């Protein structure tokens, strides 16, 4: 049975480029807008690429900065210098 991973971000100026990067890089991701927050679901896995966010905000971006915008997430986290991944690993 496929399992859904998800990440919920605040709907802020800082998070919008990240949301855009996620929807661009992860085909099939479903975006739900709630008051003040945005929840993104995808089957299997979801990856946020550093380069993809950087190209949108025009400066260096550390995937750790993601945590300033995160409200909640579901999935096993795989954090690296160049990406932040969510998946159900087992």
């Amino acid at each position, binding site marked *: 049975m496929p399992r859904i991973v998800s990440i919920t971000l605040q*709907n802020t*100026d800082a998070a*919008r*480029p990240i949301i855009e990067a996620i929807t661009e890089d992860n085909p099939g991701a479903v975006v739900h*807008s*709630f*008051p003040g927050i945005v929840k993104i679901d995808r089957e299997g896995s979801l990856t946020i690429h550093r380069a993809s966010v950087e190209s949108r*905000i*025009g*400066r260096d971006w550390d995937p750790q900065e993601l945590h300033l915008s995160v409200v909640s997430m579901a999935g096993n986290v795989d954090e690296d210098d160049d990406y932040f991944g969510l998946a159900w690993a087992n």
Partner: protein
Amino acid sequence: MTVEIKTIKVEPRRQTFGHIARRLGADKAASRYEEATLDVQATANFHYKPLWGADHWHYDERRTAIRMADWYALRDPRQFYYATYNIARANQYQATEHNFEFVEKRGMLGLLDPAWRETVAFYLLPMRHVEWGANMNAAMMCDQGYGTAVTAPCIFSAGDRLAMAQIIGRIGLALDGNTGSSLDTAKERWMTAPEWQGLRKLTEDTLVVKDWFELFVAQNLAIDGVLHALVYGRFDAEGQRLGGTGVSMLTEFMSEWFAEQSRWVDSVIKTAAAECPENKALLSGWFAAWSARAAEAAAPLAARVLGEEEARGAVAEALGNLTARAKTLGLDA
């Protein structure tokens, strides 16, 4: 009894300002940079032409020979507006302060080879006058330029120029034990030393360039491209084996700034050159003239610092790198 909490989702009537939505082609959330930049400058209803320049309107596209269908195509890849610019610079300046403390605490300027110490005072300290000229030029570009997308970063860069002049002034004070005598000597050299006269003439000539886009190419691409590469690159490298590490730490802001500013300069020139062949020809001509002048003016200073032989190679290399950079921007160089 159970309490059921419900949220009601209220759709905002619109996501951004009307003029931003028209530009983005849809009513979607815009970034702060876009909202603070796009179509901010007034374009009509000026009533009277200014007394100080009655041949143009206050904001007038005709103040340069460069033509753009949309001046807001010249965006800043760094996406600087007031907040992002200040946050970025505050962080950099904090690092600079820290470096000054570090160098002072360890007496690192005392490790300079005495002859090289004199050379540093000779090539670095008068640079504050070059930066002051560049500050005037950047303010002029902001004043005469068209469209907030390009004029806002111009005034930011004017601020950066003063910051760099100030850092150089502080290095002078660190070198002369806070008496200021080294800065007086530097001013004297700027005015009279033969090695500096070419650069002083170059700086003074840019102050009277009428076309702000020509000035943009002259200052930001040609002069910076040659001078920053030499002073903070080649000269600095030369000082490494002569105890110059402290100087490198104190001028770190400049190298970092130059790399960052170049991203903006490149993007503006690339976009303008791609607009039409006339722009490309103008920009190429300006670049060729000003880069050759900058290299020629910097040569005597380089010779004083590196020696005749090595200086020729260093200036040729700086000019070669700059020309290669101009080619990637679509100029005929």
